[in-house]
């Protein structure tokens, strides 16, 4: 054996030495040189895949090192050198891959290798072989003519580095872009350019476009798809609700789905190691696993997330009974629901009898949870609620979990339980207001509604029963439907016990008693002022008697309203003070508190009466003031009926503000600056009951303004409009003393004159004597002179009518004619002549109508000289005088025609009769009766009086005026 080994070694050495000698002579390969080198390209992975063999391996296997060189473009441009160490077996095809950073399509690659035996067992073989020949490799690019840019449509993860290359070919002006940005590539070899993107971000599902263009014409492009990194599933867990299916769920994280070869988002696989079963999950976040019928107890799940680039796994192992998540209880019912108890039943679905369940029951009312119970069940549950409140809505919540191992509770299920009603449990809080009137008691009862806690149901009505304590008779008065908080009763002045009960559908509450005595409502106590605070009123009182059941303090919450919302507070018998507070109390409102003591017989006696404000405010209005007794030096201010109780504080007094021209205020007043920057003198009245004020020391005939304001502890009422007063004149009273008697005297004289008017008339204006009644007649008769007789006026024909000038007012006189003159009423004088009255003492255009008959006789007597009017003068016809206007016009015309120098309008008609009427004073008869021609020598001639007698000034053309008209005007003799 040893000989054989020595022989073999010697043989090998001989062979090797022979080979060495031979190689020096002939370039023959050394043994163990890699042969049959085949190189393939995986463009997607950018891998060069090398395959080779080692021939004539002397042993079955050898540990060898292969030294590999990779060149790019040229064999001399070696870009990578490395060793690959492996155990080589005889006839084995060796494989090795190299990942290129640069896309393999961008360049031709050359690969060669040599081997070295690195086997300690055969140290004699430790030498390197020759290099294998360079193997040239080109990436397979079918569209080599058109494809310019590589890699094509590469998919990488976010944050990767990617190297691109492009072949500019013969196009020297090629430009490449990344989306919109121009890429400046680095020249790698001749027309091959490269650029590298580091830490690429995810931009869009459609990928990032890299393209090259010549003269803005796209020649080629590629898309870089950047995928988000696949995340490891989180919160992976499995559970069962029915021992039939395990439901596994997890949080998949971000979706890495991309539009790359229609690649979907990542997919998930569930693998259970004990059973060796595997399931592809349809959803990204949950997967259902069928539980085998033999109820495998333990499960070991591996969840694998996988996408195009990456694979991630998570694992969970659990006992099935520890992953029970029951469904919510159902078929929940309430049975035998009473006022204070009820029974609840329910069922647990789907779990069967595999496990015991623990159910949690909670009972809530409106405010909070009242009861909590835990119940163990299999399938059907039942629970009795007790100590419930009557007529109360409860919310019952129930959930269940596996009793042995609580994995997850079921969802809460909520139902409403309403208990039955019960009779009210508490007596009403009742109070009263008594108003005696006409021998009766008008009692207003008030009560506070029972709380829900005590009502035990819906209050339907209130019963009021009044007992006459004197007559011991019972009288059921009223049943008042709810909701009501009071009623009114009219009782006689006897003592009554009143019982009030609240009733619901089940029964009545305990009776609340109150006694109205005969004296109720008649109590009078003095008001006492108290000071309140914003927190309320502290009220204290003195006990009335030793034996008492308690106290009641009542007040009106809204004092100013007509309807008093009576409030009351019950106070214990041993308490003599309390604090009344209310949110309804407002500043500036007066509150009246009456404290009653309740006797043991439930009779209320008024103890004290207190008034106060929580906060006093200044008065809102001022008194209405009147100024009376105004004299020259003073006046009195008076205000009455000023409603001080309606004020917003206790009125402490008044301020009288007086404004005058005087700059200085009187000593008892102070100057006060008003809002309009004027000043007034302010007098203070500190007695609230004083409602009159005398303002003194004033100036006569002076103007004053005053204003009266009230004030409380919080201030005074706002200044309003000042009232104005003017003092009287100092001498006005003296004038009154003089003028009044004078007026009285004048009146007295006037009365006397009227009374003695007849006498005055007789004295001043005696009547014209009647010739028929004259004493001369008796004388004549006695002498019986046949020549002497009385001329009857009727027998006279008026001889003269004078028309005289009259200044004004004649027209009104015409109007005053009640009976217009008509032709028939006038006598028909044959001729009427207009005669100038030249024979009068005053020259002027006096015109008169002349009775010729009488005129002749008069002329004969020589007492008168008339100038006869020519016959040519137009006669005046009386018919022209039918109306006053015609009359006036006619006269005017006539006068103008005859005497053109007399101004028209200044002429009026004077009718003058020379004779007194024989009918004694019947002036009208002068016109009615025709004159009787009689001798006129015995009579004085009557004539129109020239106006010069009335008017002392008369011009040459001045008119003579007479007020004569139908005998109603002045007549001068």
């Amino acid at each position: 054996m040893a000989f054989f080994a020595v022989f073999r070694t010697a043989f090998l050495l001989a062979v090797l030495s022979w080979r060495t000698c031979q190689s020096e002579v002939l370039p023959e390969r050394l043994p163990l040189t890699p042969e049959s080198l085949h190189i393939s390209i995986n463009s997607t992975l950018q891998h060069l895949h090398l395959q080779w063999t080692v021939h004539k391996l002397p042993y079955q296997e050898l540990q060898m090192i292969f030294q590999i060189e990779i060149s790019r473009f040229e064999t001399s441009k070696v870009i990578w050198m490395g060793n690959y160490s492996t155990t080589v077996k005889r006839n084995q095809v060796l494989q090795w891959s190299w990942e290129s950073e640069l896309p393999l399509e961008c360049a031709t690659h050359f690969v060669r290798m040599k081997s070295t035996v690195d086997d300690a067992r055969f140290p004699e073989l430790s030498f390197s072989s020759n290099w294998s020949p360079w193997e040239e490799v080109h990436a397979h690019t079918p569209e080599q003519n058109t494809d310019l840019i590589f890699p094509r449509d590469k998919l990488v993860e976010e944050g990767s580095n990617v190297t691109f290359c492009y072949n500019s070919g013969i196009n020297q002006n090629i430009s490449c872009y990344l989306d919109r940005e121009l890429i400046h590539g680095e020249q790698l070899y001749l027309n091959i350019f490269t650029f590298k993107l580091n830490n690429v971000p995810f931009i869009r599902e459609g990928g990032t476009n890299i393209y090259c263009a010549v003269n803005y014409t796209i020649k080629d492009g590629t898309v870089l798809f950047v995928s988000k990194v696949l995340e490891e599933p989180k919160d992976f867990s499995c559970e069962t609700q029915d021992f039939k299916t395990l439901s596994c769920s997890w949080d998949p994280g971000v979706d890495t789905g991309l539009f790359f070869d229609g690649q979907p988002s990542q997919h998930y696989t569930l693998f259970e190691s004990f059973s060796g079963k595997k399931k592809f999950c349809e959803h990204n976040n949950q997967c259902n696993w069928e539980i085998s019928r033999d109820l495998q107890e333990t499960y070991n799940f591996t969840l694998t997330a996988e996408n195009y680039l990456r694979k991630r796994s998570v694992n969970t192992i659990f006992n099935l009974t520890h992953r029970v998540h029951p469904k919510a209880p159902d078929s929940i019912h309430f049975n035998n629901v009473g006022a204070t108890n009820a029974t609840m039943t329910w069922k647990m679905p789907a779990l069967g009898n595999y496990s015991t369940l623990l159910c949690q029951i909670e009972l809530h009312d409106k405010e909070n949870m009242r009861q909590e119970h835990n119940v163990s069940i299999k399938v059907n549950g039942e629970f009795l609620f007790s100590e419930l409140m009557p007529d109360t809505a409860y919310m019952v919540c129930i959930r269940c979990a596996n009793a042995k191992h609580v994995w997850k509770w079921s969802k809460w299920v909520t139902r409403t339980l309403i208990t039955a009603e019960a009779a009210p449990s508490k007596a009403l809080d009742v109070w009263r207001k008594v108003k005696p009137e006409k021998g009766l008691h008008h009692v207003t009862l008030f009560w506070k509604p029972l709380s829900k806690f005590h009502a035990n149901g819906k209050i339907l009505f209130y019963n009021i029963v009044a007992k006459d304590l004197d007559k011991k008779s019972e009288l059921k008065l009223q049943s008042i439907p709810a909701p009501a908080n009071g009623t009114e009763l009219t009782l006689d002045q006897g003592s009554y016990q009143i019982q009030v009960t609240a009733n619901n559908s089940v029964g009545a509450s305990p009776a609340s008693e109150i006694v109205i005595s005969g004296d109720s409502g008649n109590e009078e106590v003095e008001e006492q002022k108290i000071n309140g605070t914003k927190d309320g009123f502290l009220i204290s009182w003195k006990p009335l008697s030793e034996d008492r059941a308690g106290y009641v303090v009542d007040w009106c919450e809204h004092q100013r309203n007509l309807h008093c919302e009576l409030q009351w507070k019950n106070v214990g018998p041993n308490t003599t003070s309390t604090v009344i507070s209310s949110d309804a109390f407002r500043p500036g409102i007066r509150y009246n508190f009456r404290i009653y003591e309740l006797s043991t017989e439930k009779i209320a006696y008024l103890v004290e009466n207190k008034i106060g404000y929580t906060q006093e405010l200044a008065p809102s209005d001022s008194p209405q003031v009147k100024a009376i007794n105004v004299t020259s030096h003073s006046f009195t201010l008076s205000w009455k009926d000023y409603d001080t109780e309606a004020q917003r504080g206790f009125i402490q007094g008044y301020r009288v503000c007086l404004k005058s021209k005087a700059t200085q205020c009187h000593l008892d007043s102070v100057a006060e600056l008003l809002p309009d920057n004027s000043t007034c003198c302010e007098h203070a009245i500190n007695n609230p009951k004083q409602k009159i004020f005398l303002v003194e020391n004033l100036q006569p005939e002076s103007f004053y303004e005053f204003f009266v304001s009230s004030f409380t502890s919080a201030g005074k009422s706002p200044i309003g409009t000042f009232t104005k007063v003017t003092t009287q004149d100092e001498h006005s009273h003296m004038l009154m003393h003089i003028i009044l008697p004078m007026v009285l005297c004048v009146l007295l004289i006037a009365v006397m004159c009227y009374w003695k008017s007849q006498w005055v008339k007789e004295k001043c204006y005696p009547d014209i004597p009647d010739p028929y009644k004259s004493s001369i007649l008796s004388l004549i008769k006695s002498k019986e002179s046949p020549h002497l007789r009385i001329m009857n006026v009727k027998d006279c024909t008026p001889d003269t009518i004078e028309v005289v000038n009259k200044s004004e007012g004649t027209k009104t006189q015409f109007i005053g004619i009640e009976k217009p003159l008509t032709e028939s009423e006038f006598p028909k004088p044959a001729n009427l002549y207009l005669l100038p009255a030249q024979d009068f003492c005053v020259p002027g255009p006096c015109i008169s109508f002349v009775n010729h008959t009488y005129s002749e006789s008069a002329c004969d007597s020589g007492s008168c000289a008339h100038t006869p009017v020519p016959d040519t003068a137009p006669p005046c016809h009386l018919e022209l005088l039918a109306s006053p206007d015609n009359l006036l016009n006619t006269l005017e015309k006539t006068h103008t025609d005859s005497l053109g120098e007399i101004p028209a309008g200044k002429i009026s008609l004077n009718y003058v009769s020379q004779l007194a009427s024989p009918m004694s004073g019947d002036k009208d008869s002068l016109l009615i009766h025709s004159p009787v021609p009689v001798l006129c020598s015995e009579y004085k001639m009557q004539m129109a009086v020239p106006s010069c007698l009335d008017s002392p000034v008369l011009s040459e053309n001045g008119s003579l005026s007479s007020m004569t008209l139908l005998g109603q005007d002045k007549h001068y003799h």
Partner: protein
Amino acid sequence: MDLRAGDSWGMLACLCTVLWHLPAVPALNRTGDPGPGPSIQKTYDLTRYLEHQLRSLAGTYLNYLGPPFNEPDFNPPRLGAETLPRATVNLEVWRSLNDKLRLTQNYEAYSHLLCYLRGLNRQAATAELRHSLAHFCTSLQGLLGSIAGVMAALGYPLPQPLPGIEPTWAPGPAHSDFLQKMDDFWLLKELQTWLWRSAKDFNRLKKKMQPPAAAVTLHLEAHGF
């Protein structure tokens, strides 16, 4: 309006004129088959609606493709889109088309475009995009049916689909994603051009199908009143 003394006579005269011409108004004179007019109008309206719908869809899809496809002046070479039916045609040639040929070209074009669009829908990455594409395909299917209806009303036979020419857009080894995007771009562009052309085609057809009597218009001058 101020009515003068003779206005009422003018109104009466106009009313009489209207009544006199009423029998000549086709809308009032029809007794039976309404003819292809309404279906042409409906097809025209559907074309305009699809134009509007495509405007929205193309905006979304081109943004999904990314720059430079969503740039306004982008005009890539057609390359793989050469198989798409071209809508552009010489004006004189378009004018010389008879109704049958005009309708046939429309029908064939939309048949092809619809197949391409369905392929596009299969590749869309987002659910929103798939939904929009599916909606548009349904509308385009409706347009195709409407054109078929017009052709049937006019008595033209529907063109028979050539066997074996079912275009698919599955990317092969010769097809890169970038080139696919260019084809998608051309598909949307060609579709838009076809809708423009169809609107003109159907408008021309519509006018052609209207009888001359339908053009009676009554001029009621306000002044005459």
